[in-house]
């Protein structure tokens, strides 16, 4: 079990995370927050790249920074900005990382072949990576994270650059893997995790806002999400009164999904909130800022 206890991190005077407490056991965890909320900082601490200013991170009761290579040996990590060596082939690159991960040479050879097959790169394994598309590079990234068959798999924005088909394939792969692993998946794309995450962690204002199942988190908006059709002319006035979650054209009307604490009009249809609704509502200030 991986436990984050009272962890804070700041860069100089800029505080990024404060008093974070999270427990991870086997399963998929979706770390959901807009860019700049501290997801990558938390992940970098879990991967020992950053040191917390306060608090500690324990794996099975031992501080991960004291465990050293014992901890890194069970860690697989795909960073948000996945760098690679352009003149290496995928096989050479994985071979290099296998050496760093302490895999015995013959074992590494077998494992690399398995993973190249798994991520669908077996037929281009010996081509230089500079010839790869963004999606192919990302698949190499996923393969390298799984080289050492990690007990803790941390993936920061893993679906960036993948096409819809690859995303589905990747999600299925993760669901398969997560049975005996802690999988932490950071994203700001809700659809990446809503079908596979056992729990969602949301960070807001430097703190953990939610760490719960999707259902439980969605319940926080129970009875507050509605859909209705309005004239385009009314759209601006409507948005000023209610927080719009999504909008789409339906004939000459606009179908709008929005938040309201009470049902004020009979034409409004109450709908079940989904995790995207929660995300948009929770981070409405950030979303507006980003927009």
């Amino acid at each position, binding site marked *: 079990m991986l436990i984050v206890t009272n962890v804070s991190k700041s860069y100089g005077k800029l505080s990024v995370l404060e008093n974070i407490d999270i427990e991870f056991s086997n399963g998929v965890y979706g770390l959901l927050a807009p860019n700049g909320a501290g997801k990558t900082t938390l992940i*970098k601490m879990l*991967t*020992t*790249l*950053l*040191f917390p200013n306060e608090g500690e991170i324990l794996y099975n009761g031992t501080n991960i920074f004291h465990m*050293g*290579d014992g901890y*890194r*040996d069970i*860690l697989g*990590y795909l*960073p948000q*900005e*996945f*760098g*690679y*060596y352009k*003149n290496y082939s995928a096989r050479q690159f994985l*071979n*290099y*990382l296998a*050496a*760093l*991960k*302490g895999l015995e*040479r013959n074992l590494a050879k077998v494992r690399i072949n398995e993973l190249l097959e798994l991520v669908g790169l077996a037929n281009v394994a010996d081509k230089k990576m500079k010839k790869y598309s963004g999606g192919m590079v990302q698949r190499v990234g996923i393969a*390298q994270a799984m080289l*050492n068959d990690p007990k803790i798999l941390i993936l920061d924005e893993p679906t960036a650059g993948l096409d819809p088909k690859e995303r589905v394939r990747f999600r299925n792969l993760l669901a398969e893997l997560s049975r005996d692993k802690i999988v932490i998946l950071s994203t700001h794309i809700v659809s990446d995790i809503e079908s596979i995450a056992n729990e969602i962690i949301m960070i807001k204002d430097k703190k953990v806002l939610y760490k719960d199942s999707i259902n439980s988190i969605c319940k926080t908006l129970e009875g507050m999400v509605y859909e209705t059709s309005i004239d385009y002319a009314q759209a601006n006035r409507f948005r000023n009164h209610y927080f719009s979650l999504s909008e789409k054209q339906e004939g000459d009307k606009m179908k709008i999904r929005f938040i309201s604490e009470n049902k004020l009009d009979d034409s409004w249809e109450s709908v079940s909130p989904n995790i995207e609704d929660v995300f948009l509502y929770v981070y409405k200030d950030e979303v507006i800022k980003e927009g």
Partner: protein
Amino acid sequence: MDIRIKEFKKIVTSPIIIGLLVLFIVYNSIFIFQNSYFREELRVLTRLVDRFGYEIDDEMLEKYRLYYEEQLVSLNKITKEKTSKNYNSMAEFFADYKYGLEDIYDREELGLIMELGIMEAYYNTIEEIDEVYSSLDIMERAESEINKFQLIDKAAETVRNQYKAFSERFQQLVNNKEHKNLFFLGKVYRLHSILFKSLFKIIIFEIIILVVLITAYIVNYEFDNKTEAITYTTKRGRDLILDKLYVSIFSSLVVTTIILLVTLALYFIIFDYSGLWKVPISSYFNTDHNFPYLSWWKMSFVQFLFFTIGLVYSITLLFNGIIFIIARAIKNTYFAFFVFAIIFGLFLILPRLAPNSSNTIFIGAFTPYFLILNPHVWFMEGGAFATFKYHEIVTLVIWALMIWVLSILSIKRFKRQDI
């Protein structure tokens, strides 16, 4: 081991490093060939040393004189036949012929003329040795150095003290007759300058450029390619920096060996030193400017060469350490290179700002940056700032210790640093 081999492969597959290595070797070869126009003349001495040995004593000098006179008689037979003239010396002969020798004498005769001319030059030099050394005043040299750099008070006193210590060595050198050994005529061929002042300085700068590039390149490879997040979270983790340090040291020694081996092999193929390897480096013949090269210890040419090579390797390691510390702190290869160049410049300029009355002015001389500027006077009397008996050794030890400590601190810091 596997990791280090893979790190080493990064270096040998770098086109910049391999390209520069080839370029430097080509440049050195051109430099040697450009200076090789007199190589045939050098063979005259090789033949003389074969016949008489290189140690100059009365017996050798008598044999030398007789042989020279024999040869002069042979030449006079030819000149008598062709021009009806006789000569008492080659100086007299050459005074007659500024131009047009080729019109009168054939190839073989010209060979004899050249050989005799060179023989006479060596003979005349032998004759002047005692006079030159009896007028050499080491303390006068000290005063001239003091004046040259306008040193006063304690700084001047330090130079005097060093030269006083060197005077004893000079006496020993004269008593040992180290100066009385045949060697290539320095004032004509300047081979000591060509080899140790120019070629070794070129070699050292080339090695430094490559060492800086290799070390900065390998230390920052992950940061330059944005793979640091992957590599430093693997089992090997931040200990990878140690592998990088070892690989950079190994690679630096490899490029040093390649450059030295190829360049020196070519040099000694072009310039034949056979029979002269054991001649003391302080031989008067080695003088290529106004003052002879005088070593602190009795050492032969080959010993001096090997000590110089040893010092080049040591300096390579020092610069390897310096750039490791810089590159570790600055996570960008080209910026690290730039910072290294600035530091290099500062180490050469700052000591000059020290007061000329204080001993602090000598601190600047005890740096590898200063050391590499004067490889031709390593282990020798080397002017106001380098005439300390253990100048090279003290510099090496102090800097090796400093760099060792700073490297350990740098590695420790890296292991506790946010990436």
